[in-house]
């Protein structure tokens, strides 16, 4: 806490951030910039429309649906219905890794599929071309499934991707075809796309395959997209502990895993924002409880493994988990004790998507670094303030057109994995089932929480706080570095990783040490521009 005193008062900073805005803009942004108090969490404005012209980091619903949730599944042909851009820009740009069973195994992730809509299709409709594209994809690849993703013009011209999907599914017989109305203008950010993706995968895929593939402790990993191999590391740990991973939504996943996912006994959630819908729907329909975990940070990973073991209430599993943690930790400790003296007391800021801005604070804490300010691009109030505020969240006009599925218990397949009494007992023992406390309770008093941060606000924050590292994405990376501050990309990991689990923690420590202590930051100024050292004109003659 003492290091805080070096910095200006957060309310002064907030004032500074708002000063340049026109009054209406300032009024709106004031609600999205809050000074945290972990004891009495203030309300944050989140999941509201972006202010035109403000320079946001946000993307669109299509990116949230195709790019994020469905992108990582290797054996679905993801066909984008629209002009070429949307498909092109989502082509191998998110680092979802995958590992097919064999070198010949299905893997379409290196491909980019599009209907490449032209002017005539905008005028006369694109359904015919879409059907043709589905047929051609089927003839060429015979995939198990084809997902159709709508882009901006599709909704406007009235192409019905759902009717086309149904028609082609019936025509082709052995290929599951389903559509997503994830037009870029839906909702206010990527978040709408997550919800749309959850709904359609739940409706068209989950529960189709009842095969019990065995395993004593069966879980699904929800909201883990295997960026830079994160899911591989988590899978390694689960495997070591004897926990069976039935399905992963959707890092390193296959469509059959989704179909079979209702046979698991517990859903654990990494990214709450993108996948909490799926967890809730699966619990209602099939009776599978869910629990938040966090495999970012060595301590968090250990804690998450223990929590999974406690849910199953099995002594052998609990003992095995402790053995695994004991095996993993010495290597972590050795590295952290080397690095800690070089990172301790340094300052971090994190402005990332919808979950990492929270998770990665754990890793910085392990490095002895303080998080002064953090925020999401598209988190909702529950991601900031905790799920307890959900009943008070008003769904505004921009979001109310995102479908809420009406889910009921499946008459044949609903099977409560635990009775309400058992769950209440676990909860009483401190296992927070169906709970997510959000980012703010874990952040210090006086830290600044900023939703949908604008370019202007980021630059100001850096100017005023001079953090040692700023975490965001590719669009911010070179802006911030030009200011002489290293930027760690927490979307792409700057092409490194994994950062999850114990191996990931060690990778992260080393990367941050390298970045905050790099010599390059001291080499920016040319020596002749240093006012301290005046050049002597030795060779100048009279």
């Amino acid at each position, binding site marked *: 806490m003492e290091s805080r005193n070096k910095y200006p008062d957060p309310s002064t900073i907030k004032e500074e951030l708002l000063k340049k805005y026109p009054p209406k803009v300032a009024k709106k942004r004031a609600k999205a910039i809050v000074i945290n108090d972990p004891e009495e969490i203030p309300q944050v404005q989140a999941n509201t429309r972006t202010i035109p012209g403000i320079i946001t980091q946000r993307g669109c619903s299509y990116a949230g649906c195709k790019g994020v949730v469905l992108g990582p599944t290797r054996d679905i042909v993801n066909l984008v219905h629209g002009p070429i851009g949307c498909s092109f820009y989502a*082509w191998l740009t998110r680092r979802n890794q995958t590992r097919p069973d064999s070198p010949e195994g299905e893997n379409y992730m290196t491909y980019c599929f599009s209907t490449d809509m032209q002017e005539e299709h905008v005028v006369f409709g694109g359904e015919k071309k879409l059907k043709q594209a589905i047929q051609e994809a089927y003839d060429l690849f015979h995939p198990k499934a084809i997902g159709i993703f709508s882009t901006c013009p599709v909704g406007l011209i009235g192409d019905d991707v759902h009717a086309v999907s149904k028609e082609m599914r019936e025509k082709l017989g052995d290929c599951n075809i389903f559509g997503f109305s994830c037009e870029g203008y839906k909702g206010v950010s990527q978040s709408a796309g997550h919800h749309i993706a959850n709904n359609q995968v739940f409706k068209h895929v989950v529960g189709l395959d009842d095969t019990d593939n065995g395993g004593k402790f069966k879980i699904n990993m929800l909201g883990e997209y295997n960026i830079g191999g994160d899911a591989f590391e988590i899978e390694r740990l689960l495997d070591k502990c004897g926990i069976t991973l039935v399905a992963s939504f959707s890092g390193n996943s296959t469509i059959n895993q989704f179909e079979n996912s209702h046979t698991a006994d517990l859903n654990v959630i990494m990214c709450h924002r993108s996948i909490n819908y799926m967890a809730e729907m699966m619990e209602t329909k099939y009776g599978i409880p869910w629990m938040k975990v966090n495999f970012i940070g060595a301590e968090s990973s250990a804690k998450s493994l223990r929590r999974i073991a406690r849910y199953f209430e099995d002594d052998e599993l609990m003992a095995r988990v402790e053995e695994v943690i004991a095996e993993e930790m010495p290597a972590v400790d050795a590295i952290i004790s080397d690095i800690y003296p070089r990172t301790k007391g340094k300052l971090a800021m994190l402005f990332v998507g919808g979950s990492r801005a929270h998770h990665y604070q754990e890793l910085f804490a392990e490095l002895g670094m303080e998080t002064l300010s953090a925020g999401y691009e598209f988190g909702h109030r529950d991601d900031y303030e905790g799920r307890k505020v959900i009943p008070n969240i008003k769904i505004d006009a921009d979001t109310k057109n995102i479908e809420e599925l009406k889910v009921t218990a499946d008459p044949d397949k609903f099977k409560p994995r635990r009775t309400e009494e058992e769950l209440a007992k676990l909860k009483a023992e401190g296992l927070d089932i169906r709970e997510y406390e959000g980012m703010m309770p874990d952040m210090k008093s006086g830290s600044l929480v900023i939703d949908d941060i604008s370019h202007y606000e980021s630059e100001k924050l850096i100017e005023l706080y001079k953090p040692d590292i700023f975490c965001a994405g590719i669009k911010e990376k070179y802006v911030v570095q030009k200011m002489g501050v290293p930027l760690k990309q927490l979307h792409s990991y700057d092409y490194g990783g994994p950062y999850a689990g114990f191996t990931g923690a060690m990778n992260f420590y080393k990367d941050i040490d390298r970045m905050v202590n790099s010599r390059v930051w001291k080499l920016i100024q040319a020596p002749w521009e240093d006012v301290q050292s005046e050049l002597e004109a030795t060779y100048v003659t009279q």
Partner: protein
Amino acid sequence: MLLRHTTKEVKEREGLTINPAKTCQPIGAMYAALGVHGCLPHSHGSQGCCSYHRSTLTRHYKEPVMAATSSFTEGASVFGGQANLLQAITTIFSVYDPDIIAVHSTCLSETIGDDLQQICKKALDDGKIPEGKKVIYAPTPSFVGSHVTGYANMVKGIAEQFAESTGEKKNQINIIAGWMEPSDMREIKRLAKELNVNIVLFPDTSDVLDAPQTGTHEFYPKGGTTIEALKSTGDSFSSLALGCISAEPAAIALEKKCGVPFLTEDMPIGLSATDRFIMSLSKAAGVNVPDEITAERGRLVDVMTDMEQYFYEKKVALFGDPDQLIPLTEFLLDLNMKPVHIVSGTPGMRFEKRMKDILKRSPGSNFKNGMGADMFLLHQWIKNEPVDLLIGNTYGKYIARDEDIPFVRFGFPILDRIGH
């Protein structure tokens, strides 16, 4: 195998594009607008486009890429985006204070029929554009042409909306840059200086997208063609458009508006096209070619002579954008190489005709552009007739690895190398 599902058998496709050799218009318009000093590009559409375009340009240049967006919601998509754009203009001028906002559209705003000209005029009439500031625009529907079309449209918009003729000719020549790299633009300026010709180069992204590390983020970097220079293009002796697809439309617009005559040449890539560029520029300005440029040319021919045995009859597959492919293919032929497979996602009869003319020197070559001309097809062609070299953007690396072909990264985008 990274592209393990690509089959050798080529089947005609009508509905499905796989691994495109193009992207959509607005990114080209954004790039062009960054070549104007003090300009903030603005994407009139939903914000996903703007983020994707900024990200792709950033990944290519490893530099900040600034742009704003109208951030359409569903309401605006149904009732029109005028209010969003007007609000954006107010916010941008008060927060980011550019001299110019250059607005382009997307498939969303084009489908609903937003009229950029009318909205920009309204902004002016309503007093939303501060004194001395300017808002220019170019419609860039993503369902027409490609990123190259978008570049051409914005460059045309720049020419049309800045050029003024005072009636007094200026001793200068306009060089309208087709879509080329900042380093290429720097080289064009160097050659003009060597020739001792006054030029106005536009757009000019050198010193914008290859800025130095100074410890300060210059929101509007030092580079970019200035407003003053752009205004003066109407008084220039003539224009030289480099690239018939990406630069010529601007030259035509400038001739129409201010009566500046123009000549279109290929981008100076390779020996023959560079020869033509030097000849045209020296002729237009009435200057002799200095010995230093003749020596540079001689050094290139020397390399070609020395390496002749390694180039002779080598088969090349290439993909990319029209104004680069035309001179590059010609250069390969000058090197005695055989460009056997060429695709470009960018459509256009003129491009097709130029390529077919050039390829008369290389009987049996496959060339396709526009619909169906994607990298999946290129890969299938390569499987049927293997090549010794592949030239194209980053996405060629998957073909190069699978087929074990030496690979030269060329064109846009190059996402996986630094310092290119």
